[in-house]
């Protein structure tokens, strides 16, 4: 059963009625003045009811950010962002949404239909206003979180919005927030540190195997965490957690600039598996109006024998700037990166990973599959480095690009740095095209041209799809077909 349907089924099991009256939410809540100043940061912090130390942390980031320059080394091209013209904190519904599904872009609805999303969820995703209260009654985060939390609490797992964690678990947040991605890390991460709106917090205690994949439901629910999402996941000694982020359904979003930060910490013998499906609005045929996605994701294999694995399926956004990385600090730790990045139309993707080997006998594996179609540009940028103390560091990288059509581009930029002679790095890279002969062969057997391309591409990305949790993989497969529509003919 696709995750979205499973979600609905699970939500229906919850007794919705008992929450019915609790959800006349004040959606007209105020928003911060336009532009970014210390006052904006104070406003956000106050809105969240944060303690003084958190405000100071944000202000410190803000002051650093003012001294920083936007990076320009990525192979992406976009007009300058007017940071002082943006809103950094706004109510969920700052501008009126469509009244019914009839007013929603038919293209979007067609996509929902293909993904098999029930009508009611389509309305939520498209931001239809009329049903808002009723829909909230079903999808309200508080009610559902309560149910899930019971199960998680029994296992001792903390899973809550980061704003709640700041209030309820300050000792954990203080210890780990910014410990993987420091506030001074990079322009976008620093901006996020100053103004982050909300996000998820996960703590898995020693020796606990988290009893469920985190987020099946929350993928839909956290639609208003905003443009500056902040996630912190800590796996204590000997624990395991699998976290799913994102949504296969394209969501309506008023914010063009997204700058999220995700920090993962794995202590001794712990394992974190983080899977993402990103399908934000890529813009129109000319590339206008699409989301700019500047993300900093980093995992710290802090403990011995720890393991962090990133799996991502990137199909949306006008611009993607994203390098989920692993710092392999603990001896014998392992980092993995599995990626499918699809670009079509005018999309620009500059994505990859960094594997920083610091500990002894650390290993890493990178499997990247880039697919470019239309007039898009798709760059893999990866760094593998071994510190001089990282004896016997090992990396295997396989980086394949597939081109569809004549007007797209695929680029591979691998950096390798070994400061120890015992490091062994292997790098394989291929670039191929879907040949007309392959397409003709499939068509001769009865597949349409689009079905043929989707089949060939799904074969190309199989190694990565296999890394996704089952239900996510099925959705991702459908999403790949949809993303490539219009890439042939």
């Amino acid at each position, binding site marked *: 059963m696709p995750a979205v349907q499973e979600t609905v089924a699970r939500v229906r099991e919850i007794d919705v009625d008992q929450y019915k009256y609790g959800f006349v939410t004040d959606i007209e809540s105020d928003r911060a003045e336009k532009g970014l100043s210390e006052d904006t940061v104070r406003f956000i912090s106050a809105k969240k009811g944060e303690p003084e130390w958190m405000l100071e942390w944000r202000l410190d980031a803000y002051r650093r950010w003012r001294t920083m320059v936007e990076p320009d080394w990525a192979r992406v091209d976009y007009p300058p962002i007017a940071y002082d013209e943006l809103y950094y904190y706004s109510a969920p519904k700052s501008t009126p949404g469509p009244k019914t599904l009839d007013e929603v872009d038919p293209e979007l609805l067609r996509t929902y239909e293909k993904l098999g999303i029930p009508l009611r969820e389509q309305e939520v995703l498209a931001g239809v206003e009329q049903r808002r209260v009723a829909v909230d009654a079903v999808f309200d985060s508080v009610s559902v979180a309560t149910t899930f939390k019971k199960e998680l609490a029994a296992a001792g797992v903390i899973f809550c919005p980061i704003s709640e964690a700041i209030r309820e678990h300050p000792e954990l947040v203080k210890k780990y927030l910014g410990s993987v991605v420091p506030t001074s890390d990079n322009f976008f991460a620093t901006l996020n540190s100053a103004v982050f709106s909300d996000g998820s917090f996960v703590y898995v205690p020693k020796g606990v195997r988290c009893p469920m994949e985190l987020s099946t439901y929350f993928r839909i629910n956290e639609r208003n965490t905003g443009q500056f999402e902040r996630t912190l996941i800590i796996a204590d000694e000997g624990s395991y957690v699998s976290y799913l982020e994102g949504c296969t359904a394209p969501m309506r979003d008023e914010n063009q600039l997204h700058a999220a930060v995700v920090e993962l910490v794995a202590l001794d013998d712990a394992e974190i598996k983080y899977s993402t499906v990103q399908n934000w609005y890529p813009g129109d045929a000319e590339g206008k109006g699409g989301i700019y996605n500047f993300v900093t994701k980093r995992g710290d294999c802090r403990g011995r024998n720890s393991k962090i694995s990133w799996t991502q399926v990137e199909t949306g956004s006008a611009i993607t700037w994203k390098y989920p990385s692993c710092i392999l600090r603990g001896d014998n730790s392992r980092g993995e990166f599995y990626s499918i990045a699809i670009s079509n139309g005018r999309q620009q993707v500059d994505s990859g990973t960094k594997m920083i080997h610091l500990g002894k006998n650390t290993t890493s594996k990178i499997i990247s599959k880039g697919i470019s179609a239309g007039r898009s540009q798709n760059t893999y940028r990866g760094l593998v480095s071994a510190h001089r103390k990282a004896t016997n560091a090992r990396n295997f990288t396989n980086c394949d690009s597939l081109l569809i059509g004549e007007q797209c581009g695929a680029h591979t930029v691998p950096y390798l740095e070994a400061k120890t002679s015992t490091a062994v790095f292997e790098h394989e890279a291929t670039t191929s095209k879907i040949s*007309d002969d392959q397409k*003709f*062969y499939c068509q*001769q057997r*009865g597949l*349409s041209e689009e079905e043929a391309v989707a*089949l060939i591409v799904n*074969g190309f*990305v*199989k190694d990565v799809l296999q890394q996704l949790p089952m239900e996510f993989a099925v959705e991702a497969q459908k999403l790949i077909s949809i993303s490539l529509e219009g890439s042939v003919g």
Partner: protein
Amino acid sequence: MLSIKNLHASIEDKPILRGLDLDVKPGEVHAIMGPNGSGKSTLSYVLAGKEDYEVTDGSATLDGEDLFAMEADERAAAGLFLAFQYPLEIPGVATMTFLKAALNAQRRARGEGDLPTPQFMKLVREKADGLGISTDMLKRGLNVGFSGGEKKRNEILQMALLEPKLCVLDETDSGLDIDALKVVSEGVNALRAKNRSFVVITHYQRLLDHIRPDIVHVMAKGRIVRTGGPELAHELEARGYADYVGEAAA
């Protein structure tokens, strides 16, 4: 079944087929022989609808339906099957997955529903066993790492599964040793039926010892230049194509 009249076709403005006529009745097996460059493979591609080829004149119908009015996938659903001389490889797509996608695409095009998976699996196993195709081969990427013989057997498996009306075999014997040739030919012969026709394109007579044709045509310079019974194939084997190259060129 298949009716081709005055077919002219070119690739990149270079004429290859120049007025070809062919009439194949239900249940018949026709062999088309000819020297290299006579346009045999072009004929198979033009019938199947490969994009690079342009039909400049003439017509082709399958059971009265205009082939040239259909896309390649529509022709397949209408019952035209081409066994490729060089079957393509599709990495990462298991043979089984491909077979299922193809069969169901054709069923949908004909307004039939998808075949339920258990029935599909049973059907494939049955057909595969007859061709000596192992379960392991069905799990591997389509034609990836297959030997020449395995690729050709896989073509016949697809033919058996899709149950076409008209099968065009393009140089199916190329690259096959005698044992593989036997297996493939037996597979084809098992599919001969009153309402199914075959056009067997080959350079050599030896394939026709295994797949016995009803009618043999000689093709040269884009046209059928001679038609006869099975004995014609033996004559060609003995004398070569030299006569025909000259005749058509004149």
